[in-house]
């Protein structure tokens, strides 16, 4: 109904849901680390890029799909943990702005390492391209990947909610996100909590890499860079201080970007980034704590 109202077809709507789901996963990955470390990871997209290169590596050698996916998860998780050890840990006492600049540097570093290693032409990772075939649901043709992406994103989010709500380590992570120092005083182990947040965010990045290569099989050094910028804007848009609002923000910007990109004619959709970022700036001005933040939440932290 919404789709016919806006003059778009079901495929566009399904694509928008799929992209929204992928962005929501990235938003959770960024939001989890932000929750415990107060660090915005600009280099998150480069984790996705590394995973995509792993998939391309496996595809080039003709390895089975599951080995490729396994390799992708291994590479991303190792890189994610290494990033925590080498960069986040020494920077833990710095201000958020310094850490943002530092992860900006790491992002560029990883991107240019990929450029050195694999060249600028890009590699193909098409082992899951069968998912681009359409699926007929209720008389409407929709590409499989849109539904798969939505489904996987929903599944991951449910698993994460259970993990955070029902397990010990989830409880610790929520406590740490609320007030790290008090949580430590009450016996929460800092390194374990941070380690698990980094690990989960790495697993999510690998999932995103698998889903993204289906739609964009050409893996270049700036793979997922634009998406990370949009997701970061979405996360701030939704509100960084709560995981739920960050996730909603990520989904919202992914959905808007996918829907408008598909529904608008080219001469208008080329200005899409401008409209999205103008919307983000507007929201930041009107509600600095975020669109989905709790009422009365303080944007400025007081000592």
């Amino acid at each position, binding site marked *: 109904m919404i789709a016919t109202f806006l003059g778009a077809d079901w495929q566009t709507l399904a694509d928008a849901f799929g992209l929204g789901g992928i962005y929501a996963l990235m938003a959770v990955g960024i939001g989890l680390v932000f929750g415990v470390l107060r660090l*915005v990871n600009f280099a998150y997209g480069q984790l996705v890029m590394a995973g995509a290169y792993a998939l391309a590596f496996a595809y080039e050698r003709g390895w089975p799909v599951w080995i490729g996916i396994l390799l992708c998860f291994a590479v991303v998780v190792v890189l994610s943990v290494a990033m925590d050890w080498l*960069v986040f840990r*020494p*920077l833990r006492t*710095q201000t*958020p*702005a*310094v850490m*943002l*600049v*530092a992860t*900006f*540097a*790491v992002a*560029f*570093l990883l*991107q*240019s*390492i990929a*450029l*050195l290693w694999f060249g600028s032409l890009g590699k193909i990772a098409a082992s899951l391209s069968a998912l681009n075939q359409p699926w007929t649901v209720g008389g409407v043709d929709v590409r499989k990947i849109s539904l798969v992406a939505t489904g996987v994103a929903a599944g991951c989010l449910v698993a994460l909610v259970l993990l955070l709500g029902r397990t010990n380590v989830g409880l610790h992570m929520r406590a740490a996100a609320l007030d790290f120092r008090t949580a430590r005083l009450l016996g929460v182990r800092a390194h374990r909590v941070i380690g698990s947040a980094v690990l989960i965010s790495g697993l999510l990045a690998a999932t995103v890499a698998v889903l993204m290569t289906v739609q964009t099989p050409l893996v270049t050094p700036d793979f997922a860079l634009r998406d990370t*910028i949009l997701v*970061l*804007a979405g996360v*701030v848009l939704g509100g*960084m201080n709560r995981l739920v609002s960050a996730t909603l923000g990520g989904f919202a910007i992914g959905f808007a970007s996918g829907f408008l990109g598909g529904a608008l004619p080219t001469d208008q959709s*080329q*200005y899409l*980034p*401008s409209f999205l*970022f*103008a919307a*983000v*700036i507007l929201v*930041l*001005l009107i509600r*600095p704590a975020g669109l989905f933040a709790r009422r009365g939440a303080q*944007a*400025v932290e*007081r000592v």
Partner: protein
Amino acid sequence: MRRFGAGFELAGPVVLVVLVALFGATVSSSTQTYVITALVNVVIVVALYIFIGNSGVVSFGHVSFVAVGAWTAGILSMPAGEKPAIMPSLAGFLRDTTVGNVPSLALAAAVGCVYALIVGLPLMRLSGLAAGIATFGVLEITHNVLRYWERIGPGLNTFSAVPETTGLLQACVGALVAIAVAFLYQWSRYGRMLRATREDAAAARAVGVSVYVQRLVAFTVSGAVAGLAGGLYVHLLPANAESFYLDLTFITLAMLVIGGVTSLWGAVVGAVAVSAVDSFLAEAENGVNVLGRTLDLPSGTRIVVVGALMALVLILRPSGLTGGRELPVPRALMRSVLTKFSA
């Protein structure tokens, strides 16, 4: 005595820039281009320093002021006969106006200044992460619009046929102007008030300093200097929308951070040092002779090295090479001045 310290604070960056320019006068013309680029980088980094250094707020958006400066100077100083070929759908007023070198630079600075003021009016209410993301948004929007709107510029085309007037002298004068502006600003009461808000926003407010107004003043001043840098840039190299995007943002921020965010000396040292490393590596990517052996690096090494340097400096020495302090007056010199004053 304080005035003496102040003079030294200005003299350090000025002498360094003049030395770099003199060095540039002695080398071959291909190397000279690197030196000129380094001096233009000094202007951009000083512009960044005026806002980021004094306010403590990160801005990813200053390269958009460089971009509008470059657009202004490039369009207005291109010979009228060349314009239709590169910019077929340019607005009438821009098509019919052609100005000389110096007016185009002044207009670039003015447009950068006005644009920064317009952007800053709403944005300077934000701080911390929100400010970082919002200024990033400004960069994205500016890049997006300049890239596709062909009424106001070349769109996807490159600014060719702009007179290449940014030689060693012009770049050096530009860098000195930027340093003078930054120095005057940081010694004025506005600069002091802004640094007070950087150290403790609540305390500064309590003594009647408006955080918003002071940040806006610095943002506008730095926008003007960034616009000037854009003008210098477009008169030096054929630029397009991609020249003023993420790569330039990254490299200039890296220069500021590596040099030391909180001092003018740090900004200039960082710009010169990183430019030197960067140009050496750029040469090495084409193959260069070092101590009798040919060094041939794969392309892309530059950003890896600069990125690694930046990460290392942030981790090991977060306040930068200069420690974020102005050039200290050497003790011996201080002592001799003191004795002269007391005598």
